[in-house]
């Protein structure tokens, strides 16, 4: 019987050579007349081990990584198909502490299954949530989601069930379910890994949402920077249609749900929900003032669910195992799990799904192993380009929405970008303004003009011109943007700027680059 070997097809693994590794294994096996079945799985999320090759043995899956095509001959010589000893052997993959010490709920199948195989999905509890939802009333499905405590994982942390109820209660002939897959925050890749590693999970979550609010059409708004995810999603949607999990009569229930992927075009602002809706309608991605909320008047003027990939992908397990099960993870008002993405200057970067409440320090050192450069970690930015920079003194903050709000920071989409002590925080503050200027939709003045003025001011500060005066102006500008912008782009750009000023003042005066 053929030995099953797993080689990820996730974009991060491919970016480090997984495609060549898979080819090399197939070629070497064929040259040696050995029967191997290569499965292209998603990633386990341990990016520092990619390409991570796994061999299915009777006691579990044994891993080797990071593997390059040059290692393949020696792996065969070491009898890796029977778990043989080799310098790259990392043992049973699920026993690696980084992986073992996680609470894999939303990501339970990612890296385990073949993302293109509906059978594999079904064999791993796939569509159990939808089947249970069909046996419940729509109101009870919404109640289950509300009771689970799930809050929007895109960053705003709004209770998902309450949003759904608003959509269900808004009178309309047509409602929509839209998935915000415009994952533009630097340091985030959870949405991408899920879509590439377990696309049916997102499809199932959206279908459940459709059933719950009586919406018959769904759109996944995917950023065009994710061509791998695009291919996987389209293939999975096609398979779901063929097997009757999408379309006019889902599994004989008489219920309809249609789903299609729409591509963005490189505009960060389209991750803001109203801007995303404009873009889906074929327009410039300029934000809409709220109210009305999209839940009341959204896509094409109809009540619309706008949820992040992580929120929707958490729904199947909530419906399958129940609200009580999900709610038992987490702390305070942050229930369930957070998919933390550890990135930047870190030794062991990757995806860590943990119940809310784990501290930043644990993530950075126990999981991450410190900086990649080996130098001290000086600052971390949590929550994307609009998130605050945190100094070492705040590393004991638990990752939960309220604890972060208390220190004027955000958890956001769970991305953590690590910087060592070579970082110049005045430059990072300037970059925050520059990014806002590049990506502003232009609708409101504080964001459109403020960001450009912010770059100019930071240039003067960095050049040492009348620093005290210009820093006071920066503070004042931040206040205006924070309070006067229409959406989170202009409204949160001050977070990285102000936090850099608050915690790393020495980088701004008297000599830029002088450390605190």
């Amino acid at each position, binding site marked *: 019987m053929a030995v099953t070997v797993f080689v990820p097809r996730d974009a*991060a693994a491919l970016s480090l050579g997984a495609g060549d590794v898979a080819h090399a294994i197939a070629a070497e096996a064929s040259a040696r007349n050995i029967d191997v079945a290569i499965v292209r799985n998603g990633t386990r999320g341990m990016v*520092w081990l990619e390409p991570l090759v796994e061999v299915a043995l009777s006691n579990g899956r044994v891993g080797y990584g990071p593997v390059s095509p040059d290692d393949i001959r020696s792996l065969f010589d070491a009898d890796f198909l029977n778990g043989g000893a080799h310098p790259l052997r990392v043992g049973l993959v699920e026993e690696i502490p980084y992986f073992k010490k996680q609470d894999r709920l939303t990501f339970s199948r990612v890296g385990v299954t073949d993302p293109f195989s509906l059978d594999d999905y079904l064999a791993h509890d796939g569509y159990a949530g939808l089947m249970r939802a069909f046996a419940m009333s729509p109101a009870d499905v919404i109640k289950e989601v509300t009771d689970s405590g799930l809050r929007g994982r895109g960053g705003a942390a709004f209770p998902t069930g309450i949003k759904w109820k608003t959509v269900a209660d808004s009178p309309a002939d047509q409602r929509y379910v839209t998935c915000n897959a415009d994952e533009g925050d630097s340091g985030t890749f959870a949405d991408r890994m899920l879509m590439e590693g377990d696309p049916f999970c997102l499809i199932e979550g959206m279908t459940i949402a459709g059933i719950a609010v009586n919406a018959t059409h769904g759109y996944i708004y995917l950023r065009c920077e994710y061509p791998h995810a695009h291919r996987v999603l389209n293939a999975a949607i096609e398979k779901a249609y063929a097997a009757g999990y999408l379309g006019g009569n889902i599994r004989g229930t008489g219920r309809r749900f249609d789903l299609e992927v729409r591509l963005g*075009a490189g505009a960060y602002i389209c991750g803001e929900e109203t801007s995303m809706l404009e873009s889906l309608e074929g327009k410039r991605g300029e934000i809409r003032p709220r109210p009305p909320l999209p839940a009341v008047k959204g896509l094409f003027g109809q009540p619309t669910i706008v949820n992040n990939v992580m929120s929707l992908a958490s729904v199947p397990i909530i419906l399958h195992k129940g609200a009580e099960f999900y709610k038992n993870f987490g702390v305070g008002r942050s229930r369930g799990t957070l998919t933390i993405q550890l*990135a930047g200057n870190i030794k062991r970067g990757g995806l860590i799904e943990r119940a809310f409440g784990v501290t930043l320090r644990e993530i950075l050192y126990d999981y991450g192993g410190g900086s990649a450069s080996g130098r001290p970690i000086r600052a971390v*930015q949590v929550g994307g380009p609009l998130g605050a920079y945190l100094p070492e003194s705040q590393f004991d903050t638990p990752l939960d929405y309220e604890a972060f709000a208390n220190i004027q920071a955000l958890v956001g989409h769970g991305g953590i970008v690590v910087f060592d002590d070579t970082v110049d925080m005045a430059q990072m503050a300037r970059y925050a303004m520059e990014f806002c200027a590049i990506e502003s939709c232009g609708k409101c003045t504080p964001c459109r003009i403020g960001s450009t003025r912010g770059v100019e001011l930071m240039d003067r500060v960095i050049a040492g011109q009348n620093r005290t005066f210009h820093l006071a102006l920066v503070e004042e500008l931040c206040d205006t943007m924070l309070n006067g912008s229409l959406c989170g782009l202009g409204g949160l750009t001050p977070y990285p700027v102000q936090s850099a000023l608050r915690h790393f003042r020495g980088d701004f005066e008297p000599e830029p680059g002088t450390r605190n």
Partner: protein
Amino acid sequence: MAPLDPDTQQTVLAVVERLKTKPGALLPILHGIQDVLGYIPPAAVPLIADGLNLSRADVHGVISFYHYFRDTKPGRHTIHLCRAEACQSMNQKATEAHAKAALGVDYHGTSPDGAFTLEPVYCLGNCAASPAMMIDDKLYGRVTPQRFDAIVAQWEKR
């Protein structure tokens, strides 16, 4: 504005015809055209506007809003170099300076031999393997200046 040659015109019209009944069809149409031609020629704008019953200004406004859409022909391959925070934390600046020097262009420029257009991008979702870069739709991680040269050498002849 250069007029479209008959082949290109046919291509544009075929895409418009195929997609124009979709709700919110403009972005799918623009993607469809750029997928085939590599850019959206200014002379295509009236054809798109006609097909969707929009004004030319509407169509132009949408094309110019989105960073990804371009109205000039790119090189044979497009290099998207990430310049967001995670990549910066891993010395993206060095790769960026090297890339510009090696290709002899700044961002948005095309190398003199017409092989590569260099574009900035703000996150490719490969932040645990920074710095990241994408050539056409192939993603690369840990792109040091040396690795940049090795990768680009593979693409030069294509």
